């Protein structure tokens, strides 16, 4: 178990980060912290993917100096996935931030529980 963990230190870090992000997103009441949690969670997966595709001593999968030999580069697919994933998580983050701004304008709070209470109070009026 021990040596395995030491060998795959990036993966271990990724899983720990995933846990941190996941719990933050799930349990925190503050919207901004939730969004931060979301980003930690997504980034940890990208770390996981990138670590998986990395091969010691090889170059990034961009054709340089006309070398087309596959042995020269690292696995390109995880990199592609990470790029796509970053796009996805950026757009989701933007959407969440937009929602947060809207809610803050309307209820003057970032705390989700507080917002719920204010909404109910507003409806009772």
């Amino acid at each position, binding site marked *: 178990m021990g040596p395995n963990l030491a060998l795959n230190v990036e*993966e271990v870090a990724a899983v720990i980060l*995933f846990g941190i*992000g*996941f719990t933050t*997103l*799930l349990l925190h009441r503050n*919207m901004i912290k*939730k969004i931060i949690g*979301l980003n930690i*969670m*997504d980034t*940890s*997966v990208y770390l*996981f*993917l990138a670590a*998986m595709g990395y091969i010691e001593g090889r170059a990034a999968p961009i054709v340089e100096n006309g070398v087309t030999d596959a042995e020269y580069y690292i696995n390109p*697919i*995880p990199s592609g*996935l990470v790029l*796509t*994933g970053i796009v*996805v998580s950026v*757009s*989701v983050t933007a*959407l*969440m931030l937009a*929602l*947060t701004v*809207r*809610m803050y304008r*309307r*209820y003057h709070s970032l705390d*989700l529980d507080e*917002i*719920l209470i204010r*909404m109910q109070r*507003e*409806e009772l009026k």
Partner: protein
Amino acid sequence: MNFVQNFPCFSIVLCMVAGIISTPLKGKGAKRVTLFIVSLVALLSFVTLLYILFTGTGFTYTMGRFPAPWGNELRAGLLESLLATVFSLVVLCSLLGGMDLIFTDIAEDKVNLYFILVDLLLSSLLAILYTNDLFTAYVFVEINTISTCGLIMIRESGRSLIAATRYMIMSLIGSGLFLISIAMLYGVTGNLLMEYIHVEILELAASGQYQVPLLVIISFCTVGLAIKSGLYPFHSWMPDAYGYATISSSAILSSLVSKSYIFLLIKIFYCVIGFDLIVQSKIVNVLFVFGLVGMIMGSVSAIMAKEIYRMIAYSSVAQIGYIYMGIGLATEAGMVAAVFHILTHAVTKSLLFLSAKGLNEASGRKRVYPALQGAAFRNPLAGAAFLIGSLSMVGIPTLAGFISKLLFATAAIDGSQRKMLPTLIVLEVSTILNTIYFLHTVVRIYTPVGAPEEYKDVRIHPTPGRIGALVALILMNFGLGLFSQPITDLIRAGIEMFA
């Protein structure tokens, strides 16, 4: 390659193109483009279905220049094209049925955005149905989430903002789990296309390697998609999201969005992991238990609900429980029942939401029950549609819901002995609870006692679009109920195509 094999790809791309074309257009123009494209997609999907029926086999379609293990693929079988047809028809009906409200509920300069979101949603739904690549599935799951969130919040009331936020948080948790399970799966197998992963997994299972990671992958993936589809107890966003969006959104969301995740899950079960391994992993038992609990708790919440939309939304919670229970039976019959119930629920729930809107309009736009007393007399078509939808959900023969229940019960009885009794008992209790809330509502809308005076003489004349949509959905309901045999045969054949 036959020209028809391009159709799945075409329909996904067409929806996106429709969204792009709609950007500079005004609301009316965007509406026309969207309606045209959605009908076209329905037609294309139907032709694909016929083509597959005719040739007897599904096909894969290579996207881009890279061939199979590296490139991206679509895969069309009977089940995919059947669901694509029904989904696009339901989108069409929901849009037509709530068209006038889209223009009144939403700020004028944002109407075209609404249609863009619908286009995007349909394209992501179709992509989730057709894709053969797990990462593509993830991307479209996220697109689906984003466009759904937009559809919920576009009305800009306080409630819908909060509902959208809660929906987003739950969905993101679900997609986070789904994403990491895909990443791990890639790490273990080195592939993203379903059948290649499947081959690797079979080898792993045979050699006994990586058992723990595989179990983690299966459970993360299942839990992630279950959260996204609103399985009890992850349903808390549903009532607000469905109750406060504009009615077309509610109809589309409740009947389609969560079902697309369920379908993706079924596809992963069969095409990626392999059904035997899933059964061995016992994850289906977890789904089974949560499904059963959801069937009861959803119905209980629906009985307690004080508003018609919340009642219908909670009933969705119960119906999703039914579907997961069918999956949890871990037999082919259970799976057929689950898929049939996806269809049943899609056509019934949209019918219920649209008709509830009609009743709500006839009651001064109030949604609480006392205002709805006698609403069926003020809007007869909506009343009749609600009645038929309710009867279908309750399970009267000749309507779709009865066949679902029959399939579930038969699957339970033919399946494992341990699961038979709990299934039957819960099915029965939940059916009785269904009856209580649906028929109680029906009795309320048909008894004008205590109806508020000011609505006494209200008469609602539905728009032609609404009439068309309601009639079409009613007919689809009867269609599923009366022609169930060919449809279940189709589903069974489709599931066998997976394996």
